[in-house]
């Protein structure tokens, strides 16, 4: 495949491209015309299957008319005539969209002979800008998850018996009719965050036909607090989006906007653009990020100034900030709020922080070409969001970095806590659609017991906690199997088009809700297209529709004329009065997991195995505590503690998370989702039972040592670049009584960073870290030109190389998962990670610096460096790894005998060994064929006993070379080859290309003064180089404790760096 942005039309096809009129040119699908419907809008279930057959044709699946139907009734014969435009073995891309919470990513889905295999970002979609996140990358694996529900299940006593949709329609239908007769009295509908216009339309029908039914928000990952805060101030339907272009001062108040908040992919891109620092002059213009948060997040690691604090104090900081800004910034009408600001009990350091921040924000306000933004995290209660919006108003950010809009079709939902009260008090039937309230609802609500007493109808991909107690559990489709549409928070609309017929007997939420709402079995395609035909009216044409499908973005549909005005200041003033900033003994924080979200991806092996971006834990959650708290509790990593909230308690292992606020504990939700599949089973501990009904994200609690251990595993044991500092233990590393082999050794110059001032003082700071200056390196190879024994001959016309900008990399880990998807990297499981045998080809090394109690963090993507004089190549006895003339360090898997000598001799430790036959796990042998469908046919699936490692996506290089060759060119144009990690990277930190040509982007980046290679003093001549990081601290703020520690390390320096 080539870069999807090039020559788009040539290889993305939508269904509609198949034929201009969407009508078969000849009678290829007999019977379709007789279905009595117009064109391709069949109205019966029978015709729908035929429609899917046509879909199969366009995806070039063998068997044409029967190909996509899962259980063909006829023998499948190979195509005797190739369908037009389809080249077997060549991948095709379809535009679609992926939703997670309220984040919408436009995607291009790669299809290999009818199998969706890889998700890429859609460059035309403003929510993804060509990138995606980890969850979107992994979503393709969810499609083939063997644990998905396959048939509808009907309750029979305590058991569930498989049935089919005809039975569902005939037996459940009367119940629904009866409910409709009662106008929906006693009916509760629990839905996820609904952004689909056609689904909202069906919901409207539902509300009309079931006027007394109540609708509840079943989505933990949704923006309910932000919405509530915005609506508090600006009225119902008001929404806003954040934009960081031009934002010179960014204040994230408990907002992990780079990984878990709404629009994080776009925000990462915009944030990274604001951190460009190619020259000292440009660095002076960098944005500055202030963060306050209880838990060290990816955003916190990016911060120039970060204060760790209790989540309950974050509101106080905003209050203090508003007070501070009051003088310098008038906001007419907001006096109600500004006069009602309560006392904010802040420490001295916090006060200083707020003062400096306020000054910086006001300076940005005054500056002509700059603005600022205050982001409030979803975890904060509604009034803090509203206050954040007021501050943004004061700073004049509304309209620039904060864009308000009105959602005319917003669905009014009640919070899940209301369902807890309503159940047994009027509500006796619950329809849960694509959510798992029995698992995810706050424990205080005791929802499982209450749901058990009600009649539950559950549509979901898994027979999960809600499914297991439901009267009917109905399988839901995956988004790659069904038609739909999504309107992103910024009103960008995308059509979701399926790539494959449903693998199991499942229906989409849209189809199901349409059936409930209007008692008609209409297929998703008709529903979606029908809706848009209605909306567009006369503007509708097949051409428009085809354009939408092709681009993945809907054009020319006006959404709302209304413009919300934040003016309900009195309401906010009233809410603020109730705020309580008193410090609890212990604060228990809950967070969406950066990998598995609220648990929706709990059965996804890629995500479970992907290390947590900060703590590097895999397969588990933990009670994250600071080192001080761990010392106070007398616990080390893996010791069990009891976390208690309001009489409900959970035991889970402790993990020391440097940078966590003292006397707080952070718990990631979504784990411990037992009973849905072998991946989720036993992975972590379910902490939803601890959550309170009111504020589910943080609350007062108690943590005590429980005794005993539960072993949990991280992929990075040593978190510091200093051999002396063990970040994962409470020990005092400077205790003279401690036998510490690393004491007296300098920090290793693996990651190189400076401040803006440091960069201006010394532009070549990154190169200064080399232990041996390049001119003093003598290579053995230079004297040896023998073709077999000398240095690899780099005779290729193009020489591949990569540059990674550490100033842009946030550590979000999307590249790790993208690489796994692209390169068929196996999941090895918890026990193997425990042994240190994870297989990721690209990993994110996270190093803490500074005081152990309150460190800063840096991340560094580490992958095969493709050294020109690679140490691994010399030592392989069978020549299984060798250099290509174009400078790639190639692996010949079928030549490898597995001596692992190369892995030992790799200074970067990026080589991975197949200790077992991971791709043929005997545990799920029956299901493995389903998982095989995801494999990329262009990459060898490795077998037991061989080494593997990053290949710079050699399959993409080769494909681009073939295409260039057929186009008559002798070189591949710059930018055509996009590696999987580069493609997915939201911050565009990775650049790949030809380093022999000085005009390419990668060559230009490598020419930067910040460019350095890791361990170049070994003379490995790595082709992957890094750009040193530049931080932008505010000189007015006393440098955080961090700055003290490098100075301490510098005492030892004479023996090491710079000593040569």
């Amino acid at each position, binding site marked *: 495949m080539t870069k999807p942005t090039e020559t788009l039309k040539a290889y993305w096809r939508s269904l509609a491209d198949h034929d201009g009129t969407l009508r078969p040119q000849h009678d290829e699908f007999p019977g379709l015309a007789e279905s009595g419907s117009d064109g391709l809008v069949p109205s019966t279930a029978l015709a729908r299957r035929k429609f899917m057959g046509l879909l199969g044709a366009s995806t070039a699946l063998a068997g044409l008319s029967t190909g996509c139907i899962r259980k063909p009734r006829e023998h499948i014969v190979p195509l005797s005539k190739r369908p037009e435009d389809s080249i077997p073995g060549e991948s095709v891309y379809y535009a679609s969209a992926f939703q997670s919470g309220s984040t919408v990513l436009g995607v291009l889905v790669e299809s290999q002979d009818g199998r969706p295999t890889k998700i890429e970002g859609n460059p035309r979609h403003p929510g993804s800008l060509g990138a995606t996140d980890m969850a979107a990358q992994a979503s393709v694996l969810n499609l083939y998850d063997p644990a998905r529900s396959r048939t509808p299940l009907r309750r029979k006593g305590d058991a569930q018996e498989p049935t089919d949709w005809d039975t569902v329609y005939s037996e459940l239908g009367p119940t629904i009719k009866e409910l409709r007769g009662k106008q929906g009295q006693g009916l509760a509908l629990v839905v996820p965050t609904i952004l689909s216009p056609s689904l909202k339309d069906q919901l409207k029908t539902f509300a009309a036909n079931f006027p007394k039914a109540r609708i509840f928000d079943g989505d933990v990952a949704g923006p309910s607090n932000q919405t509530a805060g915005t609506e508090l101030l600006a009225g119902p339907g008001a929404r806003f989006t954040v934009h960081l272009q031009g934002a010179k001062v960014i204040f994230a108040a408990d907002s992990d906007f780079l990984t878990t908040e709404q629009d994080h992919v776009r925000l990462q891109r915009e944030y990274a653009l604001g951190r460009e620092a190619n020259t000292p002059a440009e660095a002076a213009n960098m944005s500055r990020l202030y963060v306050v948060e209880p838990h060290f997040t990816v955003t916190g690691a990016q911060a120039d100034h970060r204060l760790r604090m209790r989540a309950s104090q974050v509101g106080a900081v905003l209050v203090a900030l508003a007070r501070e800004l009051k003088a310098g910034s008038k906001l007419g009408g907001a006096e109600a709020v500004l006069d009602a600001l309560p006392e904010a009990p802040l420490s001295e350091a916090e006060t200083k922080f707020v003062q400096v921040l306020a000054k910086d924000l006001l300076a940005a306000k005054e500056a002509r070409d700059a603005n600022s933004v205050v982001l409030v995290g979803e975890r904060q209660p509604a009034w803090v969001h509203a206050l954040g919006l007021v501050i943004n108003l004061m700073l004049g950010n509304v309209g620039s970095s904060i864009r308000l809009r009105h959602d005319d079709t917003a669905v009014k939902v009640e919070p899940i806590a209301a369902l807890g009260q309503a159940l047994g008090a009027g509500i006796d039937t619950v329809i849960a659609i694509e959510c798992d309230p029995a698992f995810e609802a706050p424990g205080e609500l005791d929802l499982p017991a209450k749901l058990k007493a009600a009649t539950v109808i559950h549509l979901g991909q898994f027979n999960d906690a809600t499914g297991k107690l439901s009267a009917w559990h109905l399988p839901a489709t995956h988004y790659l199997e069904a038609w739909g549409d999504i309107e992103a928070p910024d009103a960008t609309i995308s059509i979701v088009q399926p790539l494959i017929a449903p693998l199991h007997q499942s229906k989409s939420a849209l189809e199901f809700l349409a059936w409930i709402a209007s008692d008609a079995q209409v297929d998703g395609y008709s529903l979606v297209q029908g809706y848009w035909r209605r909306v567009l009216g006369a503007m509708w044409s097949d051409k428009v529709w085809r354009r939408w499908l092709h681009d993945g973005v809907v054009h020319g549909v006006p959404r709302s004329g209304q413009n919300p005005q934040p003016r309900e200041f009195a309401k906010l003033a009233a809410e603020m009065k109730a705020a309580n900033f008193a410090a609890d003994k212990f604060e228990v924080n809950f967070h969406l997991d950066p990998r598995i979200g609220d648990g929706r991806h709990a059965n996804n092996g890629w995500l479970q195995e992907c290390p947590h971006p900060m703590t590097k834990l895999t397969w588990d959650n933990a009670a994250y505590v600071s080192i001080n708290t761990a010392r106070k509790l007398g616990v080390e990593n893996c010791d069990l503690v009891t976390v208690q909230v309001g009489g409900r308690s959970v035991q889970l292992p402790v993990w020391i998370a440097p940078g966590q606020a003292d006397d707080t504990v952070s718990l990631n939700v979504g784990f411990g989702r037992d009973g849905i599949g072998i991946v989720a089973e036993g992975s972590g501990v379910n902490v939803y039972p601890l959550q309170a009904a009111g504020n589910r994200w943080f609350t007062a609690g108690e943590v005590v040592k429980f005794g005993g251990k539960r072993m949990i595993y991280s992929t990075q044991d040593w978190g510091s670049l200093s051999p002396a500092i063990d970040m994962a233990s409470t020990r005092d590393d400077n205790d003279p009584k401690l036998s510490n082999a690393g004491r007296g050794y300098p920090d290793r110059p693996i990651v190189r960073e400076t401040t803006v001032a440091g960069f201006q003082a010394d532009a070549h700071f990154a190169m200064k870290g080399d232990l041996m200056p390049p001119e003093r390196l003598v290579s053995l190879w230079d004297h040896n030109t023998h073709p077999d024994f000398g240095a690899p001959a780099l005779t290729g016309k193009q020489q591949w190389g990569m540059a990674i900008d550490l100033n842009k990399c946030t550590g979000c880990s999307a590249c790790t998962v993208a690489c796994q998807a692209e390169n068929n990297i196996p999941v090895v499981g918890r026990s193997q990670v425990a042994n240190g045998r994870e297989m990721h080809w690209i990993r994110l*090394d996270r190093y803490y610096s500074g005081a152990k109690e309150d460190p800063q963090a840096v991340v560094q993507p580490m992958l095969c460096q493709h050294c020109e004089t690679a*140490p691994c190549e010399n030592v392989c006895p*069978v*020549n299984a790894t060798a250099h290509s003339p174009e400078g790639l360090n190639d692996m010949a898997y079928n030549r490898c*005998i597995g001596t692992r000598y190369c892995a030992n*001799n790799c200074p970067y430790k990026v080589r991975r*060994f197949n200790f077992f036959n991971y791709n043929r796990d005997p545990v799920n042998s029956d299901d493995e064929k389903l998982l095989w469908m995801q494999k990329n046919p262009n990459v060898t699936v490795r077998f037991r006993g061989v080494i593997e490692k990053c290949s710079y996506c050699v399959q993409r290089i080769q494909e681009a070379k073939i295409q260039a060759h057929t186009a008559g060119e002798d070189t591949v144009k710059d930018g055509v080859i996009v590696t999987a990690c580069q493609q997915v990277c939201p911050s565009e930190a990775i650049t790949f290309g030809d380093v022999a040509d000085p005009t390419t982007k990668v060559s230009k980046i490598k020419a930067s003064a910040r460019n350095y290679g890791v361990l170049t003093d070994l003379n490995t001549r790595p082709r992957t180089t890094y750009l040193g990081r530049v931080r932008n601290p505010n000189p007015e703020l006393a440098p955080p404790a961090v700055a003290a520690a490098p100075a301490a390390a510098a005492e030892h320096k004479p*023996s090491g*760096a710079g000593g040569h």
Partner: protein
Amino acid sequence: MAQYHDELDPITGRKELVEGHNVTFHDVTEAVARPIDAPSPRWWIAFILSSGLLGVYLVSIAYLLYMGTGIWGLNNPVAWGWAIVNFVFWVGIGHAGTLISAILFLFRQKWRTSINRAAEAMTIFAVICALQFPTFHTGRPWFIYWPLPLPNQMQMWPNFRSPLLWDVFAVSTYFTVSLLFWYVGLIPDLATMRDRAKTPIRRFAYGLFALGWRGSTRHWVNYEKAYMILAGLSTPLVLSVHTIVSFDFAVSQLPGWHTTIFPPYFVAGAIFSGFAMVLTLLLPLRAWFKLEHLITMKHLENMAKIILLTGTMVGYAYGMEFFIAWYSGNPYESFAFANRAFGDYWWAYWIMVSCNVISPQLIWFKSIRRNVVWLFIISIFVNIGMWFERFVITVTSLHHDFLPSSWDYYSPTIWDVSTLLGSFGLFFFLFCLFVRYLPSIAIGEVKSVMPQADPHYHEPGHGKEKH
């Protein structure tokens, strides 16, 4: 010192190599061959025990082949673990045999005669054990022949730059030459056994391998020439094999491995461990087979002195490694060594130092080096210490290398332990078979160093009786 009295050879005036009064050639033949004719119950006990351990080995290997290398404790930074430790350990042990038989032969060290046979057998079995590990530690042992330069239609050759390939040549050459050397030395004794054989099978088997040896002068002349040539061929191999094994480490660029001192240090260590293993084997053998008059205190003392010498050399190397690590100014290198002694595996390092450097120093005391119990204990310590030396080199260097992000701790699994124990089973099983079916002392050679072999020698009483 006076309390130790050794019989002196009446002609050379040196300590007697065969002790006892009136020991005749026949007595020697009987002493060596008797255990072969009728095994003692002790042999059966040893044989059954070692067969049991061999069973453990076979099960371990079968499971390894079925499941994959993952059954061991290896992980990402530590890609070589016990298997390579065991390999180097066994190859090292394999050094003493050829050193005794070849180098001591060329240096006319006559005391070698009564220990060379068993030591050579030990060498061969140790190398067999050693070869198991590089074979089975690979991910795909069924392709273990790929490093051989076999002509093929793809013109695929092995990588001649890889130390592992040099290893393949070095160890296989060493094995072949050692086997030949051993076999050539066995020929006269095989003929003796043929002549003593009481069953047709034995007669045939010994006869077949005795190659028609009749003991004629012409045979002896040719034999001794061949033996001399093989000794000459083997001598450089003694030094080269472990030098090349050390290249597996020294040629890589890993801190703690990338060291120029490795070749001499490894050779000294190999001789050290080899002699310790010879002692471990021969001390029970001479007691159980009543060969104390053939493997005398002089032999034991000599071996103990070599252990003391090489142990001290190894100790020097340990010290020098630290000095160079500090002197290099390379922070990775110096950290690797600090980490060895004081890091996660400090215990392994100090076990190594105690066993290899401290325990041999006891040999300075004559009372200790003439005490078989003490010698046996020291030999066991040295064996343990040398295993740990390889563990320390292999594992501690790998577990904390350049990038702290990759650092990990390595611990073995039950299958690592069973494979090591099982390899001892294989070794002792082969050794038991050796002492059961082959003369464990070179009868012909021992006779040649007895006073009777000297033309000037007169048996006691000869002169007086004058018959």
